[in-house]
């Protein structure tokens, strides 16, 4: 098997394996484990792992202020800087917050994405030239995926809150506004699966991206895709008793866990995959979520020349001092008429 197949099929088998484990467990007598123990463990691993990883990062200092500047910097007061410059090259904290907000909420850097291609050009003596154009599909896929996932997660709060949060009720209306099918189809679910599908399709079909992809790249995509599909199946096709689902969920949320009967095996598969995602999160590339806040090329004000940045491990270095230098070249310097400190 080649590199791609090895990595893809390992990820695929891992997800299928998780599905089988959950199915067998739910069919067997392990509903308590999969309904109560595993969710608690996953939540603990998620929170503790994430906090631990962030703290591990923070144990290393940021020795230099190295923001990547994406616009005109603050120099002379009359040099024109539009809002884009101020956000892409922030010279104060409010604009830095703006830059980070754009990055986190709008994927600003990805929005900048270009596609560069080598095209045949018979007019050129070499027969080809490069062209660059704005390429927003990756941005669109990514932002659709992330926001759809966010809405899906928020909607699930109806299982964890009693009375259900107003926000959730509102989302429910907006998300199902098409009033298509019964129960009403949630756009977020469809968008989530479509966007993950696109990202997976792109990863497999784009030769360059496939070349760099590891099992760790396919696994979360396949996992989230499976979560989306099992969720859709549960809502529209193989229904389970959602009163029982809520009893389970709110029992977990209030720390009074209880395991209602009447939960389908498919539900346990869905739940277990979600738990797997949460538990996997801190050990994976999914840490890009907290990571973007810690990225020194984005989270620093571009004020190097007027605010000193301190490096906690700054140390003296040996350099060729002027005295040594003059000792070495004194005669030549005197001869050339260059002023010296010591004539002899």
């Amino acid at each position: 098997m080649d590199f791609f197949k090895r990595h893809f099929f390992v990820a695929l088998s891992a997800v299928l394996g998780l599905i089988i484990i959950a199915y067998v467990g739910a069919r067997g007598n392990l509903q308590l484990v999969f309904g109560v123990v595993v969710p608690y463990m996953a939540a603990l691993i998620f929170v503790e792992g994430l906090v631990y990883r962030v703290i591990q990062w923070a144990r290393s200092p940021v020795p230099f202020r190295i923001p990547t500047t994406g616009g005109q910097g603050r120099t002379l007061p009359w040099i024109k800087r539009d809002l884009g410059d101020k956000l892409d090259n922030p010279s104060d904290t409010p604009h830095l917050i703006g830059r980070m907000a754009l990055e986190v909420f709008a994927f600003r850097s990805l929005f900048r994405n270009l596609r560069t291609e080598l095209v045949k050009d018979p007019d050129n003596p070499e027969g080809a030239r490069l062209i660059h154009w704005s390429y927003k599909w990756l941005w669109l896929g990514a932002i659709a995926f992330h926001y759809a996932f966010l809405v899906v997660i928020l909607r699930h709060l109806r299982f964890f809150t009693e009375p259900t949060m107003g926000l959730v009720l509102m989302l429910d209306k907006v998300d199902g506004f098409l009033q298509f099918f019964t129960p009403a189809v949630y756009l977020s679910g469809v968008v989530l699966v479509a966007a993950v599908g696109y990202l997976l399709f792109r990863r497999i079909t784009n030769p360059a991206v496939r070349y760099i992809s590891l099992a760790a790249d396919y696994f979360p995509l396949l996992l989230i895709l499976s979560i989306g599909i099992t969720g859709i199946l549960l809502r529209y096709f193989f229904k389970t008793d959602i009163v029982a689902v809520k009893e389970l969920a709110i029992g977990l949320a209030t720390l009074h866990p209880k395991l209602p009967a009447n939960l389908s095996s498919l539900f346990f598969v869905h739940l277990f995959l979600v738990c797997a995602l949460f538990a996997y999160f801190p050990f994976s590339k999914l840490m890009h979520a907290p990571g973007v806040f810690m990225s020194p090329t984005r989270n620093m004000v571009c004020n190097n020349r007027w605010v000193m940045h301190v490096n906690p491990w700054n140390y003296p270095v040996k350099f060729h001092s002027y005295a040594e230098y003059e000792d070495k070249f004194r005669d030549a310097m005197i001869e050339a008429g260059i002023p010296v400190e010591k004539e002899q």
Partner: protein
Amino acid sequence: MADYKNEFGFFAERPKVEKKLFDRNKVIAGLVIFIVMITIPLWQNLGKTVAAPAPSLDTPVIKQLAAKDKKCVMPTEWMRANHMQMLVDWRDNVVRTKEQLVTTSRGREFVAPDGKQYLASLTNTCMECHSNKVDFCDKCHNYVAAAPNCWGCHLEKGKKLAEAK
């Protein structure tokens, strides 16, 4: 300058990185915000016992039924998960004479697994027994925040009669 030789030549001291959290306040603030954000929905009921809804079967019609007839058109367990799908099928069959999906109703007829025939009607059959929408239907619907649009047309029986008068 001491003649300590590191991998790159000379400097006074090997750079030592203090064992501590750098940007401590910002990092901790960020983590606290994160934890607060993900737990906010849980605070309200934390530690409390949230009772599961108990839909009431206490209606005059059900009371009058003989013990052996005290059962729904389909098994209770099945109804809990699938009643909405059955009602949709009924509607579609009645309104659009579509083929059945999950149950065995044709037109206005519904044949239960035990062979008994029912009129496929939310108002006339379901709510005949379950005339207590507030204590039966709404209990679970509110609990799981389901907002079925049945009640746009199908009013409760009592109300309907009252309005008719």
